[in-house]
């Protein structure tokens, strides 16, 4: 890793890490025994670990080869490993809190192990830890291959990757000691948010500079999606996290948004986090790894255009459907609902484009679990985007809102779409990245696939049943005009579904663990293969398509 950096780049890296460490020392000094001080210590440790690995290879020989003649794959490898590690952590937390809902005694006698603190470690662990690292890694891979150019920076890819993971570590460790903004999917406090802005702007500049160096006349669809993901997430993150800390020595801050505006900004953020983090970015993955694995051209370039601009335009308006029948003015709710419905066809166009791309390759889908992961992901993407538009309709939302149906919907998307497309992409990527002939065990990929499918279906069906039952029980009246069920009655009715949900989550987690083992063994044991000429930047390989 460090051997690929020149001596002056190593010095720059050391300076950056020292600056981070100084920030950590300042936080520790200002925060003292308060939570901010603890986080100062976390920053110091994180920077210290990086500094140690930098210094231990500081005087290693400088790279001799012409670096521009190869792709920059080291940060991608580390990103994939980090993504899988976060997947294990985040999904384990998910299984734990699912079990807590069924059996509330599964806590230690300590605040950190309560549901309220563990729940965001699950969501942050899987969305940002697993999803975020997978997105960063695959976007670095895709942009280089589809531009036939090396990443436009030697240190910045590492800065983006480790900076993002520092943010995730601050987030998760903060929840355990009680630091939160209480905004769903935006829980980390002001200093972590500021840090993420620095990291994310670096990511954006790196990506756009790499695209500017491309040797291809056109920008491939996958890059449109990755660019939309990076740009919009930056805007969302900054606007939703505008806040004032109560003092420089405190982790606590208050948002500048008052009342219902806070709710609206939060769900504009929350829904577009789903749209641009969990959808656009992963569509970028889909548009690259699925056609590569299937060996088929994209079904329709025109459909790609329709769905890209449909998704980027309509999603922006849809957030208010999270606030139906609240203090939010009704006209905002109407706009959220109608734009959610108009979003349906562009979303389905993406799923359809992916599935129709497989025409001529369905025999591969049958035989190759990696490709089947991506096919199933497209199907779940179609299902959950339909469900999303449907749930956004006000009268439907009156039944589904605040119930487990929402949880089921999110997991149909998160497990069925986001995780499956990531696993499909990672299984495609790992052998090519580590220059291995193949994955260690195709049978284990099959096992992973079926565990993931079974886990998702068990989870989603349990939550559909539980959510609709719950929603109906809340609105059932007796003949005499009083409510038929108390809240406790609904919990008793939920109990079997909560157990089923825990089982579904465990199956999914088990599949992920098998995947980690398979990737590990691939890196360790599968024989290496030679680099193909096609997998080199245009500076060295023969000009493409000329």
């Amino acid at each position, binding site marked *: 890793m460090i051997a690929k950096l020149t001596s002056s780049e190593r010095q720059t890296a050391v300076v950056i890490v020292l600056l981070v460490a100084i920030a950590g020392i300042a936080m520790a000094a200002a925060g003292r025994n308060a939570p901010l001080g603890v986080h100062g210590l976390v920053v110091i440790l994180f920077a210290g670990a990086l500094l140690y690995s930098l210094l231990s290879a500081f005087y290693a020989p400088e790279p001799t080869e012409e670096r521009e003649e190869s792709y920059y794959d080291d940060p991608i490898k580390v990103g994939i490993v980090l993504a899988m590690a976060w997947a294990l952590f985040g999904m384990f937390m998910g299984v734990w809190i699912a079990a807590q809902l069924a059996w509330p005694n599964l806590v230690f006698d300590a605040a950190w192990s309560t549901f309220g603190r563990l729940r965001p470690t699950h969501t942050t662990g899987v969305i940002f830890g697993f999803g975020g690292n997978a997105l960063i890694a695959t976007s670095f891979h895709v942009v280089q291959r589809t531009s*036939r150019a090396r990443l436009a920076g030697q240190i910045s890819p590492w800065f983006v990757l480790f900076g993002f993971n520092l943010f995730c570590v601050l987030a998760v460790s903060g929840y355990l000691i009680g630091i939160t903004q209480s905004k769903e999917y935006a829980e980390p406090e002001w200093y972590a948010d500021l840090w993420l802005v620095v990291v994310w702007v670096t990511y954006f500049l790196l990506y756009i500079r790499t695209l500017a160096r491309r040797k291809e006349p056109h920008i*491939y669809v996958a890059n449109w999606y990755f660019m939309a993901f990076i740009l919009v997430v930056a805007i969302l993150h900054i606007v939703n996290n505008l806040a004032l800390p109560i003092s420089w020595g405190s982790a606590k801050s208050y948002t500048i948004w008052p009342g219902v505006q806070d709710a609206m900004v939060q769900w504009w953020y929350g829904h577009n986090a789903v749209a641009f983090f969990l959808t656009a970015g992963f569509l970028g993955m889909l548009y*690259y790894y699925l056609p590569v694995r299937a060996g088929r051209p994209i079904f329709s*370039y025109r459909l790609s255009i329709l769905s890209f601009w449909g998704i980027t335009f309509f999603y922006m308006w849809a957030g208010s459907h999270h606030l139906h029948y609240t203090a939010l003015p009704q006209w905002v709710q*109407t706009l959220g609902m109608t734009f959610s419905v108009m979003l349906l066809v562009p979303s389905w166009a993406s799923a*359809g484009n992916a599935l129709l791309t497989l*025409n001529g390759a369905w025999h591969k889908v049958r035989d190759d679990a990696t490709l089947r992961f991506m096919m199933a992901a497209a199907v779940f993407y179609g299902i959950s985007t339909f469900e999303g538009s449907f749930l956004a309709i006000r009268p439907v939302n009156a039944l589904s809102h605040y119930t487990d149906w929402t949880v089921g919907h999110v997991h149909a998307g998160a497990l069925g779409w986001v995780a499956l497309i990531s696993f499909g992409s990672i299984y495609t990527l790992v052998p090519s990245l580590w220059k291995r002939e193949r994955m260690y065990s195709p049978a284990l990929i099959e096992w992973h696939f079926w565990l993931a499918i079974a886990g998702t279906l068990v989870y989603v069906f349990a939550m559909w049943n539980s959510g609709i039952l719950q929603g109906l029980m809340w609105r059932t009246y*007796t003949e005499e*005009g009083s409510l038929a069920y108390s809240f406790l009655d609904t919990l008793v009715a939920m109990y079997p579904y909560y157990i089923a949900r825990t089982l579904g989550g465990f199956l999914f987690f088990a599949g992920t663990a098998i995947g980690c083992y398979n990737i590990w063994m691939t890196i360790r044991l599968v024989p290496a293969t030679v680099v193909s000429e096609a997998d080199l930047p245009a500076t060295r390989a023969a000009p493409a398509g000329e």
Partner: protein
Amino acid sequence: MAIEERDSVTGRETTGHEWNGIKELDTPIPRGVLMFLIVTHIWAIAWWFFVPAWPLGTTYTKGLLGVDQKTTVEAQIVAAREERAAITRRLESEPYDTILADEQLMTVVRGAGRQLFGDNCAACHGTDGRGRAGYPDLTDDDWLWGGGPELIEQTMRVGINSRHSDSRIAMMPAFGRDGMLEREQVRNVATYVYSLSNPDYSTEQNVATIEAGREVFAANCASCHGDNAAGNRDMGAPNLTDDRWVYGGDLQTIINSVHGGREGHMPTWDERLTTTDMRTLALYVHDLGRRQP
């Protein structure tokens, strides 16, 4: 640069672009997709005409239907109140005896009361009202502070050892822990109390202990629980001669109660429940005990 080729599977031409082996077909957008796109847009635009939708500076388009979620829900609440007005008035104002005698009204009480009980009382007393250790059984028609809807309502209103200024207050001292009784005396009096509801326990070999306990009881416990240990509802002191126990009636639990004392807690429901809900619940709880003696 762009060299279109024909894909052998679909017969379509490519766009001529290629990225690391990925090509794209120039397939037109399927007609069905366009139709579906138009249908969803027409549906959405129609909504904009009928309901509040677009902002106009300080106001917004009101829509042809003239609906507004606030007026809608207010109207629904008024309508629901009116529908229930006759019954609500009777539940609020009529004497408990009149309501108890009216089977139709009691059907309403049992329906609404069950849900109210579930949302307010069941967390401690259980959904069926049978309680558990530390939380009295409300179905046995045996009352610490007196039964009947009036007294039950009073208990709910002020709570027990609660923050309410008129709270019912009851505390059993920790006779053992605070050194008021010797270890031996605690055991004796507990044995005596145990024997009251377990006559079989008064055997030859226990009789001495029990008699010693009786003296301890008279000197320390009778002031609250009464000379005959039948309890005192004015002080919330339980009857110790029956087999109904708040904390448990086995010998060891009784020893624990005498040693460490007891101080139950019930929150005040004053100002948290409406008069109708309070009276409905009082009737419901009274009815629980009456129905399952």
